[in-house]
């Protein structure tokens, strides 16, 4: 009886684990299978062709890849320094009571559903950005092509980047905070005893010993920004051209799938093209996640040696 029970429990647990692995493999297969019509028609040219004309059965992901890269990197560029600063504040500066209050709030920021953030983005953030921030940036930094003249509508790559920044910050901040807390107190005290100021302790001890982990956290944040569909769809004006200016419309891989999914059901090639976008997204996401794991593993290794 007991031996039988052990076997059953083992069997059920192993089955669940196997099911998890199977689901992931099946997911990869299904996405590529769904993309098959588009892959056989367009091949790899799909990746750099920028024309997207469903009525003429012409599809290309070029402008979407561009839009995805611009919005995600903007989110990372703005979000990562802020997130690391928050993590430093929470792990090294804040008294325990303040940390206990602010940590959950930062995590709560990650819990806001993207559809609510996107809705807030259209009605509150976009008008503000359009009326105040964009004209200001254009006037002061307009000589850089990035900050071109604002368009008539509020939807812009810039607003989408800001929304993604808000989404990326809590992810990077909470992982980095946990990393900074693992830096041994003695090393920090040793640096202080040598006369280092607080900032020098951070720059000379805390950041170097956690750098790879922080980079891994940034990659995870970037993965989140790349795959966000809903909020980006809401604030980004579904443009199909490549612009140098951040203040014009654009579109991303994930957002295009969300916008046009219902219309695409009519044509297998159209649907296949959206699945093709999904496949690209899947591969990019996989690379970033594996990269984050690989870098994070190196971090573990260094910590053990030290």
């Amino acid at each position: 009886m007991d031996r039988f029970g052990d076997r059953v429990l083992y069997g059920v647990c192993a089955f669940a684990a196997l099911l998890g692995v199977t689901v992931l493999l099946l997911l990869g297969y299904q996405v590529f299978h769904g993309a098959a019509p588009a892959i056989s028609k367009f091949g790899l040219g799909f990746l750099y062709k920028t024309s997207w004309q469903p009525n003429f059965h012409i599809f290309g992901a070029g402008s979407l890849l561009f839009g995805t890269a611009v919005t995600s990197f903007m989110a990372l560029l703005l979000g990562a320094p802020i997130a690391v600063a928050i993590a430093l504040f929470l792990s090294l500066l804040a008294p325990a009571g303040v940390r206990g209050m602010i940590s959950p709030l930062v995590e709560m920021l990650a819990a806001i559903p993207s559809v609510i953030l996107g809705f807030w983005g259209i009605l509150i953030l976009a008008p503000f950005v359009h009326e105040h921030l964009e004209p200001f940036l254009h006037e002061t930094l307009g000589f850089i092509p990035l900050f071109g003249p604002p368009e008539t509508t509020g939807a812009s790559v810039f607003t989408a980047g800001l929304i993604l920044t808000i989404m990326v910050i809590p992810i990077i901040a909470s992982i980095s905070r946990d990393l900074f807390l693992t830096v041994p107190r003695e090393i920090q005290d040793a640096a202080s005893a040598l006369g280092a100021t607080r900032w020098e302790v951070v720059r000379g001890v805390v950041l170097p010993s956690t750098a790879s982990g922080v980079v891994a956290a940034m990659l995870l944040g970037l993965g989140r920004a790349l795959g966000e569909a809903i909020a980006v769809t809401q604030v980004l004006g579904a443009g199909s051209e490549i612009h140098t200016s951040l203040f014009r419309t654009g579109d991303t891989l994930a957002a295009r799938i969300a916008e046009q999914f219902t219309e695409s059901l009519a044509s297998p090639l159209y649907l296949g093209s959206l699945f093709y976008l999904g496949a690209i997204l899947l591969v990019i996401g996989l690379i970033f996640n594996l990269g984050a794991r690989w870098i994070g593993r190196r971090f573990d290794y260094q910590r053990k040696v030290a």
Partner: protein
Amino acid sequence: MTGAGVPDPTAPLTPSGNLRRRQIVSRLAETGATLAALLAVAVLVIVTYTVLVRGANALSLEFLVKGEPAGIGPAIVGTALVVALATVIAMPLGILIALYLTEFAGNRLAGSVRLTMDLMNGLPSIIVGLFIFGLLVYHHQDSVYAGSIALAIIMLPLIARGSQENLLLVPGSLREAADALGVSRWRTVLTVILPSALGGIVTATMLAVARAAGETAPLLILDSIVNNAKYSFNITEAAPNIPMTIYQLSEEANPEGFTRAWGAGFVLLAFIVLASLGARVLLARNRRKMAS
């Protein structure tokens, strides 16, 4: 006669020159870090404040009970249905996977299962939607259960990881006591280990529910062709739900719709905040119990 290099011993002890510069840099960095934290909190406050104030205008009993265009009753029921079903699928599987990782798996196998869970956690939710669409919906119709399975895939890694962390927290002495009494493995797991980790497992599940309740992208693909005016309890058909309601209303430029969307956002956000807070309280209580 005093030499020029000897400092005046009566001067006050204030840093000067290089040290002063370093201290100013440090002070600036500290201020920057504090401001960054305040900025994050400010964004959170602004977003929740807007949703709460604008949403409160829409709230009324009628709003919570009736269907479109007066209210979002059917969407509330639909979200409850789709999330409940997803939890029923994901919770047992997540716990079993966590048990497999902590109790049974060798290093190699555990590594690959953990990798699977990490990758699943990093999947963009819209891709999960595409997957289930290809698997279950293509050539068929949108349905609640298809949406639930997609949400379950999103919840699974969260529950598995949270449960695993809590299973590892169960003191080894408990297990050894059971072993000493000659209790078999499966009885130890079911009567000793699982019950003492239960609080943590429930916490992880609540956080996963909070996450799933707000997911929109999979439902857009799997559970969106609906009649927002009618209650639907049939899981083989599509049912209205809150995230899709907000999404659809936000895409139409209709001020009345916006008010309804804020109201729906209020209901969704309130649920998510309560679930997260509840999970946090439970976690704190559980940690205390484990520590004592």
